[in-house]
Structures are given as C-alpha cells and as structure tokens.
C-alpha cells in the first residue's frame, strides 16, 4: 500500500497523505498527520539516544583502553536500554526549598527546544517535517531557547554547585552562539539561501566543503568547536564538570527529569552534527563531482538516507573524539578562545568568503 522508495520519500509521504484524506475530513487528516509525525519523532529520538549513549560509552572505553559495557546482551548492546528502564522507575527527588515550578519546568524547556530544532532537519529526499524558508536560522533560533533549561534548572535546585554550573553555561552558550551563527552565515554566502532544501540542492555538483575550499574548511573547524561548546560537551563541559561541580546544573535531578536532560543533550549533539552535515557535506546529497556523470550515477545507488546518517555518524564521531582527547578548559580560557580567537577569525573569514564569491573564485 505505502511503497517505500529509499531514494525518494516524497512518494511515500504523499500516499499516506492521500490515504488519510480519503478516509477522514481534512481537519482530522491534518490532526492524524501531526500525531503520526509526533510519534515517529519521539520514537526516532528515543532510539537514536539509546544508540548514541551506547556508542559514546564504547568510544570512551576505546580511548581509555577499556572494554566498555559488555555484560547485558551481546557486546553489552542492551546496557543502555536497561539503564533507561532503571531511570524511568527511579524516585523523583526535589531538594528542600527548591522552586518547584521552575525546577520541574527546566527539563521540559530543554526537550521542547531540541524537538523544535529537529523539526526542520532534512533526513532524506522528501523526508523533512517542514521546509521553512529560513531553515538554518530557524534551527539556530529554536535551539537558543534550550539554554533556559540549564539556567533555570541550575538555579531552582537550591544547590551551590548547580548554580555555578548554570552561570558558567550561560556565559558559554551566549558567547558560542555567535560563532555558530557566523560560521553558518559564512556558508550561507556560498549557498545563497537559508532554506535547507535549497542548500542541499546547491550541492548537486559537489559538497561545499570541497567547492568552498579554504574558507569552507575554516568555517567548518570553527563550527565544530562552537558546536561542541554549544552542546556543553567535553572539553567544554564546564556546566556539568563532574569532577569539580559533581554534575553541575543537573545535580539535583533524578529519575525521568534527569533522563530528559540527558536526552536533550544527545539530541542537540545530533542536531549539531545534522546541521554540519547538511551545510558542509551536502546533507542527503550523494558525493558528486561536477561533470563525472558515470561516477555520479554510481554514487546515486547509495540511498540518500544512508548518506545522511553516514555523514551525521562521522561528525558525531569527531565530536566524541574531541571529548575523550582534550582536557577540560577553564572558564577564562573558554571565553578567551571565543572572543579573542574564534570571533575575529570568523569575521575575517566572512569578509574573505564574500570577496571570493564576488570574484567567483569557487567551484
């Protein structure tokens, strides 16, 4: 009934749309579509977070010459599922004198922000929830709300360590947002559009990381550094630094509320990797070289969804590599890195890119 074509999902999506509209009134069909999208998004997030946590533990083990989880299931594959079941069944503890309303609100803000951001990500050809005309800016705007989860969660728990974690992350996220936006803006000068489908379409004859040569590489490196900082991951995990702040802003959280923070962190890691893959590596666009028709045809045999998740997996791998390689920065080093190095470099790069685009010095 719903033929799934791995190369173009728009047929599948259309047939579901028509099937629903034939059986329901238009209003109820829309509502049913919302429900389907919501449920599939939640399922996707749950599954991908379980996989990411497992991968992170295995990567950490690899870097530290350990084996990692290996008891629950084959190669410890069921370990994270068992951990999540345990988290769901734990007691909710609220510390004394905590501001209960804000304390309970904080995890929800964080999760809502990452789900909003996920809405505009193109997973494969024809598989995107909404293709808004300002896609890239929208994702950045939606995820900028997530910092409230950290700020409020750290404050409301009535704990000194949480408060310090929240303050650190406030300074960090506000400064590194600049770098993310500017490095993406640099690439927007190349793509000429903020709409994600058009950004992908502009990479039909080659990904921007190759077409944009040097400035694209500079922008990519800055994007990866700022993206790691934005998701509060090591070496920029000052907000939760477990060795000095016990766990930073989520010290006081337990059970499912802690799980929500955990989930939001991994989903924002996925979003950063997905945006990076889309802007620099062509999203679901296969690896094409300008006029090598035969080569491009061979590359097209690999389905777009495999390309997308392959690129995302590669970028996530790089970010995890950062985390387990570099020691944690101090807060002053962190701010110096942003304001004295990344920001001026970014601005110079932006001017360089504008000049290159004006002169037509890119492929």
């Amino acid at each position, binding site marked *: 009934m719903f033929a799934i074509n791995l190369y173009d999902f728009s047929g599948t999506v259309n047939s579901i749309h028509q099937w629903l509209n034939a059986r329901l009134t238009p*209003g109820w069909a*829309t509502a049913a579509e919302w429900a389907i999208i919501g449920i599939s998004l939640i399922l996707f997030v749950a599954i991908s977070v379980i996989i990411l946590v497992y991968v992170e533990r295995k990567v950490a083990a690899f870097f530290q010459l350990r084996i990692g989880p290996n008891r629950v299931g084959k190669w410890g594959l069921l370990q994270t599922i068992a951990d999540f079941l345990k988290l769901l069944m734990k007691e909710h503890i609220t510390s004394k*004198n*905590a*501001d209960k*309303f*804000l304390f309970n*609100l904080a995890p929800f803000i964080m999760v809502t922000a990452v789900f909003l951001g996920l809405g505009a990500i193109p997973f494969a050809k024809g598989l995107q929830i909404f293709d*808004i*005309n*300002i896609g890239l*800016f*929208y994702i*950045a*705007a*939606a995820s*900028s*709300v997530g*910092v*409230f989860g950290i*700020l*409020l969660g*750290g*404050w*409301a728990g*009535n704990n000194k360590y949480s*408060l310090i974690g*929240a*303050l650190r992350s*406030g*300074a960090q*996220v*506000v400064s590194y*947002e600049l770098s993310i936006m500017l490095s993406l803006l640099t690439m927007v000068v190349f793509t000429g559009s*903020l709409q994600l489908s058009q950004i992908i379409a502009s990479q039909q004859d080659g990904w921007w990381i190759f077409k944009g040569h040097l400035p694209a590489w500079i922008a990519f490196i800055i994007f990866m550094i700022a993206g790691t900082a934005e998701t509060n991951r090591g070496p920029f995990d000052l907000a939760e630094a477990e060795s000095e702040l016990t766990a930073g802003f989520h010290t006081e959280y337990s059970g499912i509320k802690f799980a929500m923070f955990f989930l939001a962190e991994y989903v924002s890691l996925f979003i950063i990797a997905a945006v990076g893959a889309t802007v620099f590596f062509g999203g679901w666009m296969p690896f094409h070289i300008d006029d090598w028709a035969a080569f491009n045809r061979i590359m097209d045999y690999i389905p777009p969804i495999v390309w997308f998740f392959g690129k995302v997996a590669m970028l996530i791998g790089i970010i995890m590599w950062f985390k387990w390689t570099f020691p944690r920065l101090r807060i002053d080093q962190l701010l110096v890195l942003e304001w004295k190095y990344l920001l001026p470099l970014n601005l110079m790069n932006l001017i360089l890119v504008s000049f290159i685009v004006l002169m037509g010095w890119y492929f």
Partner: protein
Amino acid sequence: MERFIFYFIAAIILVFSVLTVSSRRILRAAVYLLFVLLATAGFYFLLNYNFLAAVQLTVYSGGIVVLIVFAILLTAHLDHRLPKPNRLKAGFSGLLAVTGLVLTLFAISRFEFVRSPLVTEGPYNIEEIGTRLLSYGDYGYVLPFEVISVLLLAAMVAAIIVAKKSIKND
C-alpha cells in the same frame, strides 16, 4: 483551526503578561516574560512571517531574557521575594493600564485598516529583506540601520569603559 491557534496564543500572552507583573519571585517573572515573548513569536509564525519570528526567538528569548536571567542568577537568592506593592501604587498602576487599554481599543475601533499594496502573502523572501535593509531608495532602511549600529557601538564602548574603570583604580 487558525482561529483556534490564535486564541490559544492570545490567551497565553494575556495570562503570562499579567503574571509577569504580579509575580513576587523575580526569576519567575522573567520566565513568564519569556513565555510572552515566545508566544509573540508564535503569532509571527501564524502570520507566515518566519523571519521576524526567528528574530524574535533569537534576539528576545535567546538574547535579552537570557541576560536578564543571568543577571538575576548573579544577584538574587532563591528565597528572595519582592515586597508587596502598597495599595496606592497598585491602584494607580491599574488605573493607568485600564486607561491605556481603553485608549488603544478606542483608537483601533475608529481606525480603518487599508490593505497596503506593498504587502504580499508570506512567506517573505529573505533576500528582499536584506536588500531593503541596505538600500537607500524608496522603502530602504539603510539610515535607521546605520543609526542603530552607531548607537550599539556607543553602548559597547560605554560598557567597556565602565568595566575597565575598576582596573585603573587598583
């Protein structure tokens, strides 16, 4: 459906605006303000004006309210409560608010809304916004743009001087 969403967002804005000014816990007031600003972004999305909605999200909720919350985290304690306003002040503020509401409603009811020929059905083209922002012809905004950037520069210089003063005195 659109009407339902409109009333839903409007209700959020009204309720949380009142809560913003009536809450006695300062951080909660800031969070209510955040909700009001987010709901306003929702209005822009409803109007298909995506760009302004995203600007609202980044500048107001992602920037200004974050700074407000940050300042509160640095200064206020969790148990801190704002003092109860006295009757006279509360009454006077209420009177002012009601007068403002009546005046605005009166003005709106008398005003004839004419559809501007410049307005097109959204979503608005971002290239158009960029060109208008930097053009000096008709409907170009380069002068306000430059004036605001000079203002921002002045504010930044002032902030740096204020922050530097303490180091000089040491």
